[in-house]
């Protein structure tokens, strides 16, 4: 419910960070600083050894985090102390969820202040058991759609998702890129009305974030660009980027979509 509530104040900026990078101790402070800088929702990644949907930036972050001692127990500790300034969303691979047990995982999310779950390698067709667990514990299960998702399937995913619909801006893996494609705009336009839409994958600049908002998205998701700055230890630049992105999307809201 916290997520839907947040979406009533769109446009939103959603920021992904990999928990445990550079260290588990650093993560709660990062969450608070990002929230202060303007992040409306924070996706807290749980690092996996085999992140098949991620590009080199997040792969490297996951390896650093695992080496720094991040695991699922530590993850929930970190989430609990990160505070509740903004809604937190779990992002991670299904095997990590499966290994803990679906019910226990959803329950741990609820108990540590995590409002939703994004599991990029779990399509709705395979998700019924986790969906039940999430329902039991009041956690949103957020599904993804991509530019190559056919219309009938997009409709199905839009009905199945809760909280919001995560639109993958382009095919391929996560990572910063330089433009926003026509495919992305088309995808945003294809989503049935009334479904909150957040666009991620490849958004790294305030202009790109503003662009997807102008194209009709309710939220822009930034990941790799932030993870990259964290890797370089440039936390002030990270805060500035988040601030600039938030300003850019706020300005963009209400303006006419770009005609292409």
């Amino acid at each position, binding site marked *: 419910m916290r997520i839907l509530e947040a979406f009533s104040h769109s446009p939103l900026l959603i920021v992904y960070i990999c928990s445990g990078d550079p260290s588990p101790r650093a993560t709660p402070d990062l969450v608070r600083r990002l929230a202060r800088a303007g992040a409306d929702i924070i996706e807290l990644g749980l690092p*996996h*050894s085999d*992140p098949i949907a991620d590009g080199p930036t997040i792969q490297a972050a996951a390896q650093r985090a695992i080496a720094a001692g991040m*695991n699922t127990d530590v993850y929930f500790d970190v989430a609990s102390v990160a505070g509740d300034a903004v809604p937190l969303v779990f992002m991670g691979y299904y095997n*990590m969820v499966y*290994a803990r047990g679906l019910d226990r995982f959803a329950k741990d999310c609820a108990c540590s202040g995590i409002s939703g779950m994004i599991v990029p390698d779990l399509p709705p*067709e*395979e998700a019924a058991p986790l969906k039940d667990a999430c329902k039991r514990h009041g956690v949103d299960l957020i599904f993804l759609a991509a530019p190559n998702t056919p219309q009938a399937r997009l*409709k199905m995913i839009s009905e199945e998702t809760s909280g919001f619909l995560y639109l993958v801006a382009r*095919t391929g893996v996560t990572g910063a890129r330089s433009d926003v494609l026509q495919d992305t705009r088309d995808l945003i336009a294809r989503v049935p009305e009334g479904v909150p839409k957040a666009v991620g994958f490849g958004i790294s600049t305030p202009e790109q974030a503003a662009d997807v908002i102008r194209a009709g998205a309710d939220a822009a998701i930034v990941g790799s660009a932030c993870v990259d700055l964290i890797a370089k230890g440039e936390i002030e630049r990270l805060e500035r980027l988040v601030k600039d992105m938030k300003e850019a999307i706020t300005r963009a809201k209400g303006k006419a979509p770009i005609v292409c």
Partner: protein
Amino acid sequence: MKCQIANAAGVKFGRYGGLFVPETLVQPLLELAEAYEQMKNSDEFHRELKNLLKNFAGRPTPLYYARNLSRVLGRKIYLKREDLVHGGAHKLNNTLGQGLVAKRMGKTRLIAETGAGQHGVATAIVGANLGFETQIYMGEVDIERQKMNVYRMQLMGAEVIPVRSGSRTLKDAINEAMRDWASSFEHTHYLLGTAAGAHPFPSMVRDFQSVIGDEARRQILEAEGRLPESIVACVGGGSNAMGIFAPFLKDRVRLLAVEAGGRGPGKTDKIADNGASLGYGTDGVLHGALTKILQDPYGQILESYSVAAGLDYPGVGPELAYLAETGRVHPMMADDKTAIRGFRALSRLEGIIPALESAHAVGYAMSEPDALGELTIVNVSGRGDKDLATVMEYENS
């Protein structure tokens, strides 16, 4: 519409299998599944494949009565000679099949993963022969271990892309190929080398490899007038095992799946000392399927280990996980030492140098002859030329 994945045939084997992939890959996999379903029923497709298997790959391969090994073990041992397939392993059965599927789907580029290089070579062969641009993902560690196979692939026009992520071995090569496919699927076919991964790969690869078992069944009936009491095959992902087992699933034949016991059952935080996912693994999701995998309690995938690079994989095909659970297939193990013993014995007794992978099946048969019964078939999935340096090194260490 809601159940389009669940409705497709062969998606799940009991609770195993499925399609646990990022949304971007769901559509390409469903399209592949649909295309394959159509081709399964096409006479023309089968004619073309049969022709290539016969005239290019060199099928049927012999079912050879191993006289000397039989004498030593006091029972009849037949060897299914997949080592004689063009390229030196059973891998070509699958790459030819998928190559034809890709061609008919209008794809122009093949990507594949490889560990030891056998599947990479088989893909490069098909790339050259059927006219695809071909790129092979191979872990940096494996490139160093298998220089000859890298050169073979390059000679046939394939580009070998070093994988530097993760443990820089087979599982990471698969990760990298999946990432590539997520943005290249429009013109690229991902030619997975084993009966594992997301639907439709486990059933499609099994089908293409079933030519091994179909032939063996015919050949043993011809030679002995009866079915064998057991069949022994090594298991990494499980393609040669499923290939020879599949046509015997309904028969009273003991199916023995020999996994890599490696150095033993021990494991540290990140590394398993073996490749025995059926023996030591637990349920989990890897590379798109729910199956048995080697993992830590949190679900991080362990690095596997085996002296045979082709068995060095922390997962196994979902159908084998299912058949092992139902008791139809018996998971067994041969450690490094047993495999090396099998390697030497088959070379010395029969004049056949088996691949180190296949040597696990041979070594197991030699150490547990009573499990075999009076008449058995051992699948010699590949030849051992690629392994000479490894064996020399092993014996010197």
